[in-house]
């Protein structure tokens, strides 16, 4: 036999009780009682970067790679790489992107997903590169909200201890 879980009329109190004991009863304004339990879920996926792999391996070597359409008449250059051209459908080839660019847009996030809350505030940037047809989303470091503006020159930095993640590259203001 287990004692009946404690009853609450505020949802927030129910959430707190789940953290403590794993079960609570919620009573709504009509007096209806509902049993609420904690229901954990954790999983490690086997995630292949597949055709995007050279980009992430490149980051680990301190290289920023984009892709360029192989069809001469198209030749579209993507800052965020893709193995086939979005404009004409032809295969692309890997190219080295410039490591210097400019802010196409930016923001400072004061919140984020649960997993990233401890990193707040952090800056996000869409970075544009000369002669490249699309942009790249990345973190922007060594600067604060009031420093930032569209068109600001930035340059890439690479994690000396790569995690094989897009966060292995970030940008900082160009000196």
């Amino acid at each position, binding site marked *: 036999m287990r004692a009946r879980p404690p009853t609450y009329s505020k949802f927030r109190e129910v959430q707190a009780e789940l953290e403590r004991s794993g079960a609570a009863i919620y009573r709504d304004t009509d007096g209806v009682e509902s049993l609420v339990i904690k229901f954990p879920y954790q999983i490690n996926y086997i995630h292949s970067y597949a055709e995007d792999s050279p980009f992430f391996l490149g980051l680990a070597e301190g290289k920023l790679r984009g892709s360029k359409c192989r069809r001469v008449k198209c030749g579209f250059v993507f800052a965020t790489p893709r193995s086939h051209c979005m404009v004409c459908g032809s295969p692309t080839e890997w190219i080295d992107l410039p490591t210097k660019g400019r802010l196409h847009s930016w923001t400072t996030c004061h919140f984020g*997903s649960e997993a990233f809350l401890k990193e707040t505030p952090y800056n*996000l940037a869409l970075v544009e590169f000369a002669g490249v*047809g699309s942009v790249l*989303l990345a*973190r922007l470091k060594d600067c604060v909200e009031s420093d930032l*503006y*569209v068109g600001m020159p930035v340059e890439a930095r690479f994690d000396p201890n790569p995690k094989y993640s897009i966060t292995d590259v970030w940008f900082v203001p160009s000196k």
Partner: protein
Amino acid sequence: MPARPKARSKGTPARRPTARPRSVTPPSKGRRVYMVTGGVTKFAKAHPSMDFRLMVKRAYDYALKDIPELTADRIDGTRISYFSDHFTRQLKAASMVQDYLGMNPKGSVRIEWGGATGGECFQAAYEAVASGRMDVCLAAGFETMSRVATWKGNEFIALASDTNFDFPLGGFYTGYYALMVIRHIYEYLRLQKFAHVKDEREAQRLAIAEGSRIMSLVSVKNHRNALHNPYAQYPKRLTVEDVLRSEMISYPLTREQICTMSDGAAVVVMCDEERAKEFTDRPVRVIGVGTGTDTMRLADRPFGKVPLLPHEKAKDYEDLPYPGVHSFRAGRAAGIEAYRHAGITNPNRDLDFIELHDAYASSEIQTYEDLGLCRYGEGYGFTERGDPFLKGIDYGFPTPNAGAIPVNPSGGLIACGHPVGATGLMQGVFAFWQLQGTIAKHFGDPALQLKDPKRGAIHSHAGTGSAVTVSILERGFR
């Protein structure tokens, strides 16, 4: 249009021709389709005493109660929508709705398309009837977002961004929309109002402050309208200062400019003309459907040309790289298709109101432009002049053009809540009641009833505009 900003950095991606917009809409989208009833649960932070099946059942019972002739046996099949299996942690939850409603062994299918899930479900029911496959189709949608904490919920939502390139940077949709509005402000407001400011950084700062102020007008409007909507989650009277002073979430977007997590359900019943006449003397016809898409990653959006609406000219946008990250090309594509289907050549003249997917106050302003309520770049001025506001409601600031084309008379997502799979259907229900003239009956308050509206649009939108639906509804009775 003002000239483009001179200070645009050299690295601005070269303008490239993009895939041509669809030039021809199929001449026929099938049989005439009517909406005959709908129902909505009150959207709330949490409904722990109702699971998703019971929420849908409540909305369904409400809808059927409105039409005594419409009994469960008259329904040929269903389309059921919810966005995230992560929130339900019950795969094939739509099957459980189907059996809870006693719909077996009728046909059904689950609809999912990110934030536009509800709008797609609305159109899936349209298609079932238009094609002749069903005479009567039930569209039902729900979401139960209270099952995880808010920031975990943000994580689930951000899994609908590219998990290789976008998610690991913060997993945060508000951040993506902030990137979009910073660029939108840069493209337009900076030059329209601050061209005289010599210092580029200062000009951009001032433009963002001005953009934030104008976005706050939208937030005040939607929360204020919702004071008369008993289904809304967060009706309230706010000032511009309240909105600006609320917590900064992702610069420049503040908490009051962003919709919240919700639990809720909504249903819509559609049928062919014969059944519509049998069921109700106040049917509403779906006269236009449109959809559009764009790249999942913001970073992949092209810099091409603006696909034009009938009342626009190419020279309006000669220098505008489009859509970039400042506008929603999917919304424009959906608008073009739906307007063409419905025979709309000037949305301001031909529509009486719009229920628009305002997940962010910024995206409401951006969408005014996508849907052609004003030209690209004029969204801020359009807001300030008051066109999308309701006449006769005091918002605490002047709204000289109020009533021109009310947008989100219900309060929209910002005030009603956004239980994703239900949201697009909720818009359908509110638009339906508007066109029927039954707002007073269903809201218990006549304040939001527009005077004699003939035609309205509903607009549903998935993450950063990766998919958008537009549906046009028209009063189907005299």
